[in-house]
């Protein structure tokens, strides 16, 4: 077979292994009789392989949060409003800080705003305190759950407002106890919980400064610790754990619900 009779397209289709078998035979026959042609096919394949080798590492890169968010079902404005009502969380002002890789999924992007500064610092401090104390097998807390009443009384006194330890048994977490943690401006109360798998969560509560408005739930990951945090009625709350976001969110909803009941009293 005369090599020039071989269509260029067939050569590429053959190199890309896309040529139907009945035509592949003709190409193979041509290659067998023409080393230059065979070299071209090899070259095409080597070029493709090199491109894949060069670009495959992109596939292993971590997917940015904003693209994960774009993969979430978009919420209609009505659905979003219903959620906001349900959670009684007002939208707020100012710029989003993405320092911690924050992403709030179920509210959508427009609710991802808060006053810059304090809440982000709060989430980071909460994650650090969680990492420090949850890893402590022997003495994770100062006051154990057996003395819950005196724990709550003590923390309420130190923080200057009524605190409570939410009951998380419905989601499988029992109170371990609590402690006082030094915060930037305000002391922070820490309640620790544990489930049957010895997985620990901490809920941290502190008074916010007067200039900090309410925020929607926000999520941050700091050194592998996931933190849901929000500000409600001048109090900042942070729920931290080494569990995945969905599980943590389920617990956060229970916490929020119980605090709302307390507030309503």
């Amino acid at each position, binding site marked *: 077979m005369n090599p020039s009779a071989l269509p260029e397209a067939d050569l*590429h289709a053959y190199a890309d292994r896309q040529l139907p078998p009945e035509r592949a035979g003709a190409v193979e026959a041509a290659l067998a009789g023409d080393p230059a042609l065979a070299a071209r096919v090899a070259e095409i394949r080597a*070029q493709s392989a090199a*491109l894949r080798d060069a670009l495959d590492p*992109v596939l292993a890169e971590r997917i*940015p949060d904003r*693209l994960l968010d774009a*993969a979430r*079902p978009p919420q209609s404005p009505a659905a979003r409003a219903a959620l906001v009502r349900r959670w009684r969380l007002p939208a707020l002002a100012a710029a989003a800080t993405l320092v911690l890789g924050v992403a709030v999924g179920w509210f959508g992007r427009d609710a991802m705003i808060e006053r810059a500064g304090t809440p982000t610092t709060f989430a980071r401090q909460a994650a650090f305190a969680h990492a420090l104390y949850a890893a402590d097998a022997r003495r994770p807390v100062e006051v154990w759950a057996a003395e819950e009443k005196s724990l709550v009384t003590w923390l309420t006194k130190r923080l200057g407002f009524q605190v409570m330890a939410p009951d998380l048994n419905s989601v499988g977490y029992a109170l371990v106890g609590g402690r006082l943690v030094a915060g930037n401006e305000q002391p922070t109360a820490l309640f620790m919980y544990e489930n049957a798998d010895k997985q620990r969560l901490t809920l941290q509560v502190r008074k916010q400064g007067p200039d900090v408005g309410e925020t929607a739930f926000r999520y941050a990951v700091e050194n592998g610790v996931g933190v849901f945090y929000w500000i409600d009625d001048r109090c900042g709350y942070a729920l931290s754990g080494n569990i995945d976001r*969905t599980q943590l969110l389920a617990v956060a909803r229970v916490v929020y619900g119980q605090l709302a009941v307390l507030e309503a009293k």
Partner: protein
Amino acid sequence: MPPPAPPAAGLPHPDLVAAIPRLRRYARVLTGDPTRADDLVQDALGRAWEKRALWRAGSDLRAWLFTIMHNVYVNQLALARREAGNVSLDAEGEFGAAWQVPVQGNQLDRVELLELVALMGKLPPEQREVLLLAAVEELRYEEIAAVLAIPVGTVMSRLSRARDKLRRMVAEPPAPLKVVK
């Protein structure tokens, strides 16, 4: 996309998430800029949700997403072209110095590979797209034709030109290339 029962509200759709790495790779070589590439992927995902009623169940989701992203890209190019007063963006070396596809890796031969990718940036976008879809994504020519809305014959001629041009550039680099790691 796949309309049958999306997973729990608010969670990223697993089929979309599975497609994201390939969309990012494609977009990155297309735009030559990681941030612009992710912008493009983000826009494409947004469009995909808007148009999900047009998705035919059972067809290849990845090819459909490439189609959407190609359309978003072409629209953005057309807009940029209008704003730039009809400057042709198909000209060689469109991205010039901005061209960069930082990928990780520390083997010595990665330099050569990165050079190859940088040279790919000198191909006209329409050739680059075909080469990417055929050689890297390994789509079938008919799928590529559908994604780019061009005849299969055009896919073949662009592919042939792209490969030939890239081969010649590798053989005789026109100018010293700055490789971005």
